[in-house]
């Protein structure tokens, strides 16, 4: 289970982004997880809750959106969504395909509580 190590990295990056953006506290983190990301959404969620509880004073919500696995066919140039890990073009049947979506574990956005600053 390597979700914990990746979630620690996620939170480090989120904290850094927050600091670069004025240092408000992070209310919500939205991530996208694909079927070929190598992580399990439920394990990411529990690892996230655990790390935040241990290291942050204010709570942070994690929203996970699961993305589809999409391949691009290098034979017929078509893109198609596959759902069974059979890496074949659904149109022409070629196995000469490249994954264009679905291997990501990506920070989509973060929502900050805006600190009211006076100029």
């Amino acid at each position, binding site marked *: 289970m390597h979700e914990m190590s990746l979630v620690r990295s996620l939170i480090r990056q989120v904290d850094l982004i927050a600091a670069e953006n004025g240092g408000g506290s992070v209310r919500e983190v939205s991530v996208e997880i694909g079927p070929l990301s190598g*992580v399990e959404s439920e394990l990411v969620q529990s690892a996230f809750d655990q790390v935040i509880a241990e290291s942050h004073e204010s709570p942070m919500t994690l929203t996970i959106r699961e993305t589809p696995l999409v391949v691009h066919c290098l034979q017929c140039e078509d893109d198609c969504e596959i759902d069974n*890990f*059979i890496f074949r073009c659904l149109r022409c049947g070629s196995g000469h395909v490249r994954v264009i979506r679905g291997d990501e574990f*990506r920070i989509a956005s973060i929502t900050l509580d805006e600190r009211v600053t006076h100029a």
Partner: protein
Amino acid sequence: MPERTIVINRDIQSERRAAAEHRRQEFTRQKTFVVNLVSSPGAGKTTLLEATCRYWKDRWKIAVLVGDLATQRDADRLRPFVPVQQLTTGGACHLELSLVEKGLAKLPQEHFDFLFIENVGNLVCPASHDLAEHLRVVLLSTTEGDDKPGKYPKMFRTSEVMVITKMDLLPHVPFDVDRATVDSHLIRDSMEVITVCSLHDEGIHNWCQMLERRREQLFSEVDVPCST
């Protein structure tokens, strides 16, 4: 309290991937061909490396980094042949580039033609970690069953070569080499499949030839003239 949403759209591994890519280019410049060996525990990674060392003898300069949760056992097995460093992860289920760097620093500081990184035995987590290798090889032993590629798609999708090991046990186990091959090709169309019995040095010629061919292919694409 007012809130503000910032769009990021960045993979959390993007920095690690960039670091691995940078390291890979360095290995390429040094003409060290780096192979990441992944498999379940006990599939025969160390035994394959022992057979590789026996086959090549002094033909190539080889170094090995071996990852395990604990003990020096694998390093002890390979030490009679080549410079080797054991990387003990202390419980982590996979190797990361930072651990590889630590191991490299402890190896003799000389040129190696091949660097083998024997990953922690695990068909899941090591798939997500780029160790700056040029080639990822997944081992599948006949005792594990021929249904593994479809069950561990990420590991087989990210590997370019599948080595079926323990071929001497084939008469005793319900393993169909064709079925495993077809299954791996559904995951990765271009998967190169090699069968070996490392204990009896069978198939090692093909395995070593594949490595030499891929090393030559890679370095002939690099502009620098070959020094050896």
